[in-house]
């Protein structure tokens, strides 16, 4: 234990913005939660449950973006299929929540979820067994994405699949899962997915207190993952990761088995995505195959790029900002918001090559000296 603490304390030097950021994040979480639970709804400072849930969702997305940034920004693995791990985590949670409904489904079946009853299934498929236990479901929420990432990564990285080939493979992976989960025979509720959840470990999902708790847990989880990730990436392993990103072959020649580094980082990232998915589902109330859609995964990559790739905080900021923009835009200009969002992406790419977080550094160096950039590559 003390070893672990020591290890963490050493990492503080790098990532100097992490701690302030975590403090800010937790402060906002506490304030928002308090404003929701303690203030009367007509108070001007009241934060509605809608906002809390929305924030909770954004934080899950931020966690997913973080996962993508870890492998893309730091290790150069562009995954266009991270939504798959997110969705798998989500399904694990969804299955648990589904089982919690028990005999309160519309058909009143003691064991089978509604969609199985009405498709005339006779018994619970084997992969649903144990999902009524919270701990088991949570283990599955990290093990399944992790295992898939391990198998996929083991195959791909060992065969030295890289670059766009890898990206397109991840896309194929999530696309195949999308199609598979659409199939009703798969036993995951087909296109409708899993929904109509009632409670989580005994707490009513519709209660404000439960929602606030979920939000707070998400924030804590995000903070924890951020700190751990920051520490990992500032260790020597982080340096190896960057080395792999920039010159993988060279890294091998100094004795690192780069494929193992990549596999484990990929698994770590997938597990984070799985956790994000598991936290996402009870807050939005539904999980369905749409989450596997390749376009969703591409969007995550875009959040990261908007925020600033290669900085963990950038990924979080990007996810929060783009999603906030989406929420605002869709409400303000339902017919034209895609113009605004599209333009945002184009403009960020053109004028903020290092993303929003990079803007800070850009302004700083601007002030110092006008730069002469190299024309070539």
């Amino acid at each position: 234990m003390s070893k672990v603490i020591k290890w963490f304390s050493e990492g503080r030097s790098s990532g100097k913005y992490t701690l302030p950021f975590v403090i800010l994040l937790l402060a906002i979480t506490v304030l928002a939660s308090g404003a929701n639970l303690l203030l009367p709804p007509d108070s001007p400072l009241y934060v509605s449950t809608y906002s809390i849930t929305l924030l909770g969702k954004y934080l899950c997305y931020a966690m997913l973006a973080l996962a993508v940034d870890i492998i893309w920004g730091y290790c150069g693995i562009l995954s266009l299929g991270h939504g798959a791990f997110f969705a798998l985590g989500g399904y694990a949670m969804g299955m648990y929540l589904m089982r919690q409904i028990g005999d309160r489904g519309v058909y009143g079946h003691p064991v089978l979820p509604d969609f199985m009853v009405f498709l005339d299934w006779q018994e619970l498929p084997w992969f649903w067994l144990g999902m009524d236990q919270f701990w088991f479901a949570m283990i599955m929420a990290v093990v399944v994405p992790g295992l898939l990432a391990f198998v996929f990564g083991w195959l791909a990285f060992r065969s030295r699949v890289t670059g766009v080939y890898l990206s397109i493979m991840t896309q194929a992976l999530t696309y195949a899962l999308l199609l598979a989960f659409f199939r009703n025979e798969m036993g995951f509720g087909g296109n409708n997915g899993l929904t109509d959840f009632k409670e989580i470990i005994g707490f009513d999902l519709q209660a404000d207190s439960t929602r606030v708790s979920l939000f707070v847990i998400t924030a804590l989880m995000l903070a924890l993952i951020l700190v751990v990730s920051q520490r990992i990436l500032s260790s020597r392993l982080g340096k190896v990761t960057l080395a792999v990103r920039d010159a993988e072959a060279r890294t091998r020649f100094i004795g690192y088995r780069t494929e193992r580094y990549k596999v484990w980082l990929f698994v770590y990232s997938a597990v984070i995505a799985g956790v994000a998915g598991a936290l996402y589902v009870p807050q939005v109330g539904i999980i369905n195959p749409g989450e596997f859609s390749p376009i969703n995964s591409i969007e995550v990559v875009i959040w990261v790029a908007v925020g600033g790739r290669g900085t963990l905080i950038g990924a979080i900021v990007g996810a929060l900002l783009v999603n906030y923009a989406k929420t605002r835009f869709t409400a303000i200009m339902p017919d034209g918001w895609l113009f605004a969002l599209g333009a945002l992406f184009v403009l960020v790419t053109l004028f903020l090559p290092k993303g929003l977080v990079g803007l800070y550094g850009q302004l700083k160096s601007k002030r110092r000296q006008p730069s002469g950039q190299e024309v070539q590559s």
Partner: protein
Amino acid sequence: MSALDQSIQGLRETFRRDQVWPFLAPEQAAKVDVSNQMILYVEGLNLSFDGFKALNDLNLYVKDGELRCLIGANGAGKTTLMDVITGKTQCDSGTVYFGQTHNLLTKDEADIAQLGIGRKFQKPTVFEEQTVFDNLELSLKTDKRVIQTLFARLSPSEIDRIDEVLKIIGLKDQRFMKAGALSHGQKQWLEIGMLLVSDPRLLLIDEPVAGMTAQETERTAELLTSLAGERTVIVVEHDMEFVRSIARTVTVLHQGSVLAEGTMDQIQNNKDVIEVYLGEEAAEA
């Protein structure tokens, strides 16, 4: 049927009790058996690319502690030979042994590097996005497994070692500069530095003085001479002056096989070598 047998056999292989799975096996720094004074055996190496023979029945033996110069015309196969030794390229036939026991052809790049074979590339390749210091830290001779790397900490002696090397390669002032911002010659030095900190048994050095000034060339020569003895060094270089200043044994490659081998004097007076490589003038000098 035989497919079934095979798979059963394969399964048995997989679960043999006297062996551990490769990913569980401890990666100890293996001992190099040099009881015969030889550290590198290259025999009958052949390699062709789309019909072009880059290596042609090549044989090469290098003694432990030797400083061997490898010269030869552009395209003779020197870099390719290093590629094969370091596991970058698979050869068509032949054997490469490191010491008596390590068959390098069955190993991959990381394995070979961990055995203690270090390499400097013809075109300097460093980790451009990281500082000079980090480049060196990554190259340290350490346990390179994932978990160990995660919890690795720089020991004072390692820091000293890095400082020492920084001094040798003249990049003390650039230690926290990104390697990508170094000039060509500085990158050459950094790469040499990365080799030095990794403390290898066998150094394969491809054209170290390309783009260096005369004085730097001299310094490099000194450095390499001092390394030999304890370590084995194979240097590829076209700068004859430099070769002459360090060489004890010189091997000349031509069209993928050894054309001549001997002392610098012997080589310089070898007709064939003069014809295909040195040219009249250089031989005179």
